[in-house]
């Protein structure tokens, strides 16, 4: 048995090795890979809300473009709640979704949103309703958060490789969601790769317990904590037993099913890597934890409360360095969330197609989501990280699976927020009418320190967006 987690090795011991004293306590700044000071980690947060900008029909959508100039502009009403943080936003207006493949637009928009890759057609192993009777399989490429999380380098969120036993955070990525339903193409947006969707944790209580319950800046180092050492010993023995069990079963079953055991083993190895007990001793004095959420039903009426819980957990996970790459999916493509708290009597997707002029209600939904996003951004901005705030060190990308509720894939309402640790010049509205959103994903990757020219299989080599950085 060997301690494989960075906290198993102990940040303090690492610092001692570098000649830094223990007495610095929680004020010790983060170190980058070369031991230099003053690097707050760079973070990425992807945020999804459903459906496109309100439209009466295919040819009549509201024009949500901000009014004014690049540096002096007024937000459209669907984004107006974000006004208090306008100086920390970038509105990239006019992008066309780089997406396509099986299903109808909601479906391939969902699969393409963070991947710029094609949605597969159905196969016997993956055959889902893709809207209006269309059938689809899974998406065909990794999403940008996974690409960023796998990369490492001095200007990336992570400075060590994925297989390095000394990981910098307990979780390389965290996927959270609220009401994301069962595993089908309409309900998933994050992909490890081709045909490999990742499922979000949608239970706030479970997310809290897993990610934050052990986080306490005053937690003693594992070396000084016999109870944790004992637990580590037991859990390591347990994981070793499970590995033997997997190997035993592999000999009994056909090779066609081997991939399931590979995946299971990979999950076990991830568990093993976190065995140190994993409460990260965040150097950040502002690592504060939210109240533990109570049990929620996971159904419609709890939607607003669950969103708040998940946002609180997301902010804590980033500020306490539980992860540096996180996604948060609110509802799903074809959202049937009924916004009773807005006085609505018909659900989101139904109203987008019921033939009546629902632009007022649809704008109310959009503005409501913008209020939730404001809550998240303000929370991120309230965490002081020395020179700036957590928001300043984060890149938040807010995307949706459609351009308009009438299924246009143009002028998708993307919003960027946060400074990407100095990489992004905010307080701007930029016109990119007709440009592929794959270029936005390339720019996101570059802002996260990656050297890439293309993301996804639909517009490979698209390059990035001009003037963003």
């Amino acid at each position: 048995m060997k301690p494989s987690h960075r906290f198993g090795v102990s940040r303090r011991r690492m610092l001692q090795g570098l000649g830094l004293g223990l007495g610095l306590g929680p004020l010790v700044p983060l170190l980058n890979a070369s031991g230099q000071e003053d690097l707050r980690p760079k973070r990425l947060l992807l945020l999804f809300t459903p459906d496109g900008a309100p439209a009466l029909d295919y040819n009549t959508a509201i024009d949500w473009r901000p009014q004014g100039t690049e540096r002096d502009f007024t937000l459209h009403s669907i984004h107006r709640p974000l006004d208090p943080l306008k100086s920390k936003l970038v509105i990239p207006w006019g992008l066309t979704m780089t997406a396509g493949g099986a299903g109808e637009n909601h479906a391939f928009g969902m699969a393409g949103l963070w991947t710029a890759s094609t949605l597969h057609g159905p196969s016997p192993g993956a055959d889902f309703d893709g809207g209006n009777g269309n059938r689809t399989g899974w998406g065909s490429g990794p999403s940008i958060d996974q690409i960023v999380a796998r990369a490492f380098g001095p200007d990336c969120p992570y400075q060590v490789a994925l297989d390095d036993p000394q990981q910098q955070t307990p979780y390389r990525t965290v996927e959270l969601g609220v009401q994301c339903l069962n595993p089908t193409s309409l309900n998933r947006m994050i992909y490890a790769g081709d045909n490999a969707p990742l499922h979000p944790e949608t239970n706030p209580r479970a997310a809290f317990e897993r990610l934050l319950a052990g986080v306490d800046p005053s937690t003693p180092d594992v070396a000084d904590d016999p109870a944790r050492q004992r637990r580590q010993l037991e859990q390591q023995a347990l994981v070793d037993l499970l590995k033997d069990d997997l190997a035993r079963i592999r000999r009994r079953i056909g090779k066609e099913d081997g991939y399931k055991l590979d995946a299971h083993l990979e999950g076990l190895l991830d568990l093993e890597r976190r065995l140190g007990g994993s409460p990260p001793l965040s150097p950040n004095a502002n690592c504060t934890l939210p109240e533990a959420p109570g049990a929620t039903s996971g159904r419609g009426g709890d939607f607003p409360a669950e969103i708040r819980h998940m946002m609180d957990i997301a902010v804590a996970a980033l500020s306490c360095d539980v992860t540096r790459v996180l996604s948060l999916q609110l509802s799903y493509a074809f959202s049937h969330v009924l916004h009773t708290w807005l006085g609505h009597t018909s659900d989101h997707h139904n109203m987008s197609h019921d033939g009546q002029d629902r632009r007022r209600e649809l704008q109310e939904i959009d503005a409501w989501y913008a209020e939730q996003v404001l809550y998240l951004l303000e929370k991120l901005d309230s965490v002081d990280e020395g020179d700036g705030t957590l928001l300043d060190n984060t890149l938040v990308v807010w995307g949706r699976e459609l351009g308009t509720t009438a299924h246009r894939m143009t002028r998708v309402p993307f919003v960027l927020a946060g400074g990407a640790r100095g990489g992004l010049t905010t307080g701007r509205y930029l016109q990119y009418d007709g440009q592929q959103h794959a270029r936005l994903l390339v720019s996101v990757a570059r802002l996260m320190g990656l050297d890439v020219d293309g993301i996804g299989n639909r517009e490979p080599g698209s390059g990035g967006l001009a003037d963003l950085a």
Partner: protein
Amino acid sequence: MMRRIQTGRGLAVPLVFSSLVLGQGCTGELGAEGAARPGGGAASGGTTGEGPRIEDCGSAAGFDAGLTKLRRLTRQQVDNTIRDLFGVEAEAERTLSPDERMGPFYSNAIAPVTSLQVQQAQELAARVARAVEPRMAEIVPCDLAAAADLSCAETFVETFGERAYRRPLEAEEVDALVRLYELGSRDMGAANGFRLVIEAMLQSPSFLYHVEVGEAGTPSALPVPITPFGLAARLSYFLWNTLPDVELFELAASGALADEGIVAQQVQRLLAHPRAATTIASFHMQWLGLTSLVDVSKDPNVYPDFDEALVEEMIEETARFAEYVVREGDGRLETLLTASFGFPGERLERLYGVQRPPGASPGDPVPLDSTQRSGILTLAGFLAKHAHGDQSSPVHRGMIVRENVLCQPIPPPPANVDGAPPTPTEVDSTRERFAQHVADPSCASCHKLIDPPGLAFEHYDAIGAYRTIDGLGPVDATGELIGVREDLAGSFDGAIELTRKLASSSEVAECVSRQWFRFALGRVESQNDVCSIHSLQERLQSSGGDIRALLTQVALSDAFRHVRATAEEN
């Protein structure tokens, strides 16, 4: 065709692509063997070689079975199994990621777990083990205080392990778990040792997966008999959705399950047990797309009476109706599809316009107007689920009949079709509003198949209430079924007549047989399963449409009693 898809995490996911041609419109030649997909129709999942021909069925040449898949327990199965092991609630429904579906049925047969799911399983195991710890003395077979020697742990691992893994443990498994007990009990006492063992067992792939193998223990490319304990587990999860009970374990241990008569007896015994009520109801809810009935919402301006309490009654009625017919009633498919009784609560009584007969107790069938109601497809639950928020839906209703009741997959509409239903008005009928479907030739090829069986239900509004007027005139629920076998084809007037035709149709009998096969084995059938399916359909018809006979035959079929681990030897 089989190809391996390399995923981003280096997982090779084998996908078999069906011969389904998408976007070609409808030819009227639906439901042909093999030209289909798991969403509704026949299948091609994991066919190896040609598979037998129908003519071979019944002879030695017809013996075959499709590829067995390593399936993870569904969330319901985890909950049920842990309940029966420990008497505690695992809350898997709330804490594990949702299940996949094979055809209409929950089954985790294809997608590999993600790291999150492995961790969720770990958390669940730890939670259950902690919950059990205070009651450990009731569970372990010896005095905890005196459990210093390892023989008690060994006995526990062997007896309890057999139930958790649904088979006797191998010697090295026992050794490993006892060693873990030793480590856990060192300095911390026996209860901690047992807690750790339970935590390990509940995370073992032998608990989390249905590991279905043959006696030889090595993967075979030919169908070989499943182990007796494997067969006991298949029977138990098929009809109870949980682990086998003592009697099944004993029959497995004695080898008695090799006897077909005993298997048939066990099916009857399991079916008669109250646990089967939930499973039988669950089959029907999944088959008819009703699992999300709980989330249905209606426009309160149109349906002010529709609320959660009414939905609850609909769910209860549909579930009770199905399990009553299959378990307590005459068990006949015809009854399921045409009986004019229901199980309404107070709210549904008003919706149906009926009153509970004096003296009838809850759970007794209540007669409904036989000119208005005919079987499960005319109960309010089915009709409310397959409708829009403000109007009925001939498309949704037609699609579920075509795809799930007739097993005829319908190709998707052309790209850029606006799927929104036409807005209801005061003056025109549903049929008039959907007239474009038949007027536009690009729509008509499919919608002439879909819409007529959907329009048959036009006497029912979006919450399942009976109506005679739609728009300004009387409801027109007439239509003609095409693209079906001769015994079903032709004109009909309304759901009463349609459901009667469905009840006597060989195509429906075959489809119902396939759906039960999928439900029982947690996978979509392949060409290698042709004769197993055929035997179900034959039994259903030779028994006069007895679903109980069909269920017995499921358990006696080659596919159920055999495993085929691989397409080619490793």
